[in-house]
């Protein structure tokens, strides 16, 4: 039995009170977990005032000249080479994301015409494996943008150079403290947060109404998600909740962990106020309750897609736009994607798709007995050490690029529909104002930020999140193991992992 199993209902109530207290008193630092850290930074954005209204009030209040700022880091006529790997827009991305991506590369080339750039846009689920393999052969890129979960593994192995915003012309105070913390290993910062986001709960109001539910009021708790998903499936014969439980896919923990944290569980103690990452919580009562809720939806009620075990979030898009799926967890970009899909639909499909877009709603991710939670997501930019870079590291080119990408202008534009600028000064730009004016539901997702919990900052975080957690889900959902057995098996795997360090 692990430490956290001893917590009782009183502990949950206490924690909930603490949570509320933090939410009200701190209003709202990046994450509750890092509230204390927030105080140590003098930020140009006042995170203590964070709210959708505050975000709107500061948008468009400052002007920025990206080229001028970056010229102070690396002269604009600098001649050099750059190699860069990242996960950029793909076929599932809204058209606007692809356009902004093209605009960015054109602007980069125009600003630094003498830096020869080799940029590789690598699939989200492939990048980590490819990077590991490349680094074994000293064939990594100079600069890398990696999901927030992935960095510590490589920092701890010594592949990354220490890197802080000041190295490329910005102040650490202008980044989310939680994001910086997620990239700090043994007191050293190894990356610059490029973008940070939290997801939201999306539902189709018409499906809710058709099933006799209130289309304007989504499930407030995870228990209600289970209940409503069953009602929708039983009455309409379609999937209620868009569960994602694919193995080795980042989409899975991003959707399951909010549920697990809400019930009071966790992988380690990442959801506590001062995580030590030494307590395994996968076999806690909260974790088992969350797993049981998933089991109830998949096995007992059969109210979620059967293909959930092989689905990523991309596979939820088509059924959602076809009116065959009622609820899912996703980014604000999902709305833009649905509009794109609707615009491309024809005939009878067009009417259905337009109705789905019309009835699409965003809300807060449901809460559980312990808290409301969401994964504090995003990506960080890293510099790889010279000896592991194919062709050697060009510091001038890398710094110029990091400055350019993380500028208030481009960190905002590149996060257009799916995220938020890592550089908080981006919130003051006119582009942020444009986003708020044009992107429906953006304020909902940004208002989830204070509920964000970062994944554990440990070298084996990717194995826990991308393998052990999905394994646990699959073992329970296929009934290969009972819920208890699956949770205990997962906890043992994490304990073995920690023991083997």
């Amino acid at each position, binding site marked *: 039995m692990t430490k956290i199993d001893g917590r009782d209902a009183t502990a949950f109530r206490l924690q909930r009170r603490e949570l509320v207290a933090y939410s009200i008193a701190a209003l709202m630092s990046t994450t509750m977990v890092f509230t204390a850290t927030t105080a140590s930074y003098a930020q140009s954005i006042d995170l203590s005032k964070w709210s959708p209204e505050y975000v709107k009030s500061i948008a468009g209040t400052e002007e920025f000249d990206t080229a001028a700022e970056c010229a102070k880091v690396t002269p604009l006529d600098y001649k050099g080479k750059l190699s860069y790997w990242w996960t950029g827009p793909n076929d599932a991305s809204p058209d606007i994301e692809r356009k902004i991506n093209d605009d960015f590369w054109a602007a980069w080339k125009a600003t630094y015409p003498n830096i020869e750039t080799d940029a590789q846009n690598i699939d989200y689920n492939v990048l980590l494996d490819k990077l590991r393999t490349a680094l074994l052969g000293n064939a990594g890129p100079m600069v890398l943008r990696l999901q927030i979960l992935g960095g510590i*593994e490589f920092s701890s*192995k010594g592949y990354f150079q220490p890197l802080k915003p000041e190295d490329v012309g910005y102040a650490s105070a202008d980044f989310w403290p939680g994001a910086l913390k997620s990239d700090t290993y043994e007191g050293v910062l190894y990356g610059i947060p490029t973008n940070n986001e939290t997801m939201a709960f999306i539902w189709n109001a018409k499906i809710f109404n058709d099933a006799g539910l209130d289309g304007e009021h989504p499930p407030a708790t995870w228990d209600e998600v289970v209940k409503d998903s069953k009602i929708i499936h039983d009455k309409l014969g379609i999937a209620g909740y868009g569960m994602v439980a694919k193995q080795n896919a980042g989409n899975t923990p991003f959707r399951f962990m909010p549920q697990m944290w809400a019930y009071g569980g966790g992988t380690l103690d990442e959801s506590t106020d001062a995580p030590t990452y030494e307590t395994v919580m996968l076999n806690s009562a909260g974790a088992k309750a969350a797993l049981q809720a998933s089991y109830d939806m998949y096995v007992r009620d059969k109210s979620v*897609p059967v*293909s959930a*075990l092989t689905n990523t979030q991309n596979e939820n898009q088509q059924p959602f736009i076809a009116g065959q799926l009622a609820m899912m967890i996703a980014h604000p970009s999902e709305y833009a994607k649905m509009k794109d899909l609707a615009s491309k639909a024809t005939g009878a499909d067009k009417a259905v798709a337009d109705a789905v877009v019309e009835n699409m709603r965003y809300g807060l991710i449901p809460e559980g007995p312990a808290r409301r939670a969401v994964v504090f997501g995003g990506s960080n930019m890293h510099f790889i050490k010279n000896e592991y870079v194919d062709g050697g590291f060009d510091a001038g080119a890398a710094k110029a690029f990091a400055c350019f990408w993380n500028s208030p202008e481009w960190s905002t534009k590149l996060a257009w529909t799916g995220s938020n600028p890592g550089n908080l000064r981006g919130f003051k730009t006119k582009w942020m104002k444009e986003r708020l004016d044009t992107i429906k539901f953006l304020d909902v997702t940004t208002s989830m930020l204070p509920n964000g919990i970062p994944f554990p900052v440990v*070298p084996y975080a990717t194995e826990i999140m991308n*393998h052990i957690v999905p394994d646990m889900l*699959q073992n329970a959902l*296929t*009934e290969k193991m009972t819920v208890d057995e699956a949770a205990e098996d997962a906890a043992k795997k994490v304990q073995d992992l920690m023991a083997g360090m």
Partner: protein
Amino acid sequence: MSTVTGQAAFAGDPAVSPRRAGLLRRIVNHRADYLYVLPAIVVMLVVIGYPIYYTIELSLFKTPPNLQMKDKIFVGLDNYVTILRSASFRDVTLNTLIWTAGSTLFAFLLGLGAALSLHREFMGRGVLRALLLIPYVVSAVAASYVWKWLYHSDFGVIGALAVQFQLSDRPINFLDNLHSVLPSLIVVNIWKEFSFAMIMLMAGLQTVPDQLLRAAQVDGANAWQRFWHVTFPHLKSVSMVTVLLLMVANFNSFIIPWIMTGGGPAGASDIWITQIYNLAFGRQRYGVASAYSVILFIVMMTLGYFYVRALTRGDEARAG
């Protein structure tokens, strides 16, 4: 003359065994021949020999996620013990055997049937032969994605057709079910590789003497008796080679299971090669993955031995 010198040297050195002396003498005698093949041997040592050596070496080390490869920890045979004792090894081995035996057997039988059917002259034979070759020439990656969607548990074409023709009241769950996933993947693999067996066996059928078949017919043998007593014995060698090549390919098969299920759900379609990939590049257990690879290598070498024996036996039979 170097040969004489060499002989004298071996004769005077009791430490060198006669057998070794004989080998060295042969090398010296044929030094020009060996010089000709030396570049090829060097290339083979670099691209085949070194990776094998490195894999074996790595299988004796532990590679935790917080350490670089150069800091790996020596653990002796622990990785082998861990693998052989693990329940997952038994499950994965069973999956691998089912996958290999099922794919090989049915691909061979289907290929044999197709080869026998296409051996006769009939109108459209060329077109049909070309059509049957399509699965073999289609990219395995593309085929896997197409089949993945055909099989999709909610919106797959096969499931939709089954519902439409009232064969099932809901779409069939091919890939998200512990019991149906492996047979479903085997069907795709058979579809992909039966053409290979067909080509091999069609070539084998060319060697069956017509006069023997006619003589058997004159003697009153029916079609089955002609096949079993005349045709099949002539196909024995090529069948052996085909089965062995299919087995080797299936033991090493990666693309179809990896793309379609990644070994899931809950490891139900995990075979050795997907497990090795997952251990190495997903979980960074390079040491354990290497130990798995060494075990697989031993199995493959055993199969390779029988393959070479089958080939050699064929040569000997022809020479005899």
